[in-house]
């Protein structure tokens, strides 16, 4: 899933300063799963904005709505009957949501209510960890199912650097060295020699280095 974190409420209040009617829009996709932008978080942020308005004698009318997804235009369309009732929209979706809302309703001020962090998963209740860098050409099968691009601080593809110590990365004792894990798993599985195979340099054009990306599926295009 796409993992996001809530923006500080203070920052959101500064963004919407002066507005009298705002709509907080959640998303039932990834941000609901990582507890940052679902219906529950929409209600919490709306409540906090109302309390702040009461506190500072600047009451704000706050609407609440949670869409099925904010990364599909058909769901963004559901805002059309109410969007003009508001001066600003706070989207609690990942970075896609506020952009899709802004593209569909260009006259409305749209604010991001979360900071989008990475593609990852829950490793413990309340803890998420990065697993994918979206490089566009997946090769995790070469590394025992672990991605050194996303999980090595230097995205090294040919073994650990000199900063690996006792299974930890030199950037922080809390960061595991993924190459330490890859090598250990290769040894356990009797596949260490795989690492001797010379591989051509990775083609980074499919990653962000090639500029903004687009995926076209001709069989689905209407």
């Amino acid at each position, binding site marked *: 899933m796409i993992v996001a974190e809530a923006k*500080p*409420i*203070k920052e959101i*209040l500064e963004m919407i300063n002066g507005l009298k009617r705002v709509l907080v829009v959640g998303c039932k996709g990834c941000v609901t799963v990582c507890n940052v932008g679902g219906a*529950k978080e929409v*209600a*919490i942020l709306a*409540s*906090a904005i*109302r*309390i*702040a308005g*009461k*506190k*500072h004698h600047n009451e704000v009318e706050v609407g609440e709505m949670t869409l099925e997804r904010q990364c599909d235009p058909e769901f963004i369309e559901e805002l059309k009957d109410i969007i003009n009732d508001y001066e600003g929209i706070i989207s609690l979706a990942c970075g896609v949501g506020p952009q899709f809302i802004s593209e569909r309703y260009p006259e409305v001020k749209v604010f991001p209510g979360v900071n989008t962090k990475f593609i990852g998963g829950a490793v413990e209740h309340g803890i998420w960890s990065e697993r994918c860098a979206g490089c566009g050409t997946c090769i995790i099968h070469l590394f025992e199912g672990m991605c050194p691009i996303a999980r090595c601080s230097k995205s090294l593809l040919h073994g650990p650097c000199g900063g690996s110590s006792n299974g930890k990365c030199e950037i922080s004792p809390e960061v595991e060295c993924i190459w330490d894990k890859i090598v250990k798993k290769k040894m356990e599985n009797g596949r260490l020699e795989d690492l001797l195979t010379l591989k051509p340099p990775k083609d980074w054009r499919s990653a962000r280095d090639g500029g903004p990306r687009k995926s076209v599926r001709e069989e689905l295009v209407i």
Partner: protein
Amino acid sequence: MQDFKPKIIAFYCSNCASSAATIASKMKLYMSSDIKLINIPCTGRLEVLHLLKPFEQGADAVYIMGCQEDSCQYMNGILKLKKRVDHVKKILEQIGIEPQRIEVFSLYAGKGQDFISIADRIINSVKELGPAF
């Protein structure tokens, strides 16, 4: 400020804190009518939104009385709540509301006096702070 009658919401669990309340009542100890009591099955059921809503409705303070950390019959309800209260304190602080307007207490079932003394402590603290809004 002398005439300030604070609006306070107190949630209390139906186990330890409720037993303490019953004992306080048998001891003929009573709390101020400024406090509105809400009984809940377990403090672990209280979500962040439940703790913010009273402020939205104009409360000057919210406090919660639950079990001791090692005697919650639902295992860890009070521990979950304490984390949520810490989170609400951070939200209130960012809004410009004193975080001490929300507090959580662990009570012993047999200590009726504590049920009342906590109420007195909260009222005094809120009177010192003044109205939240």
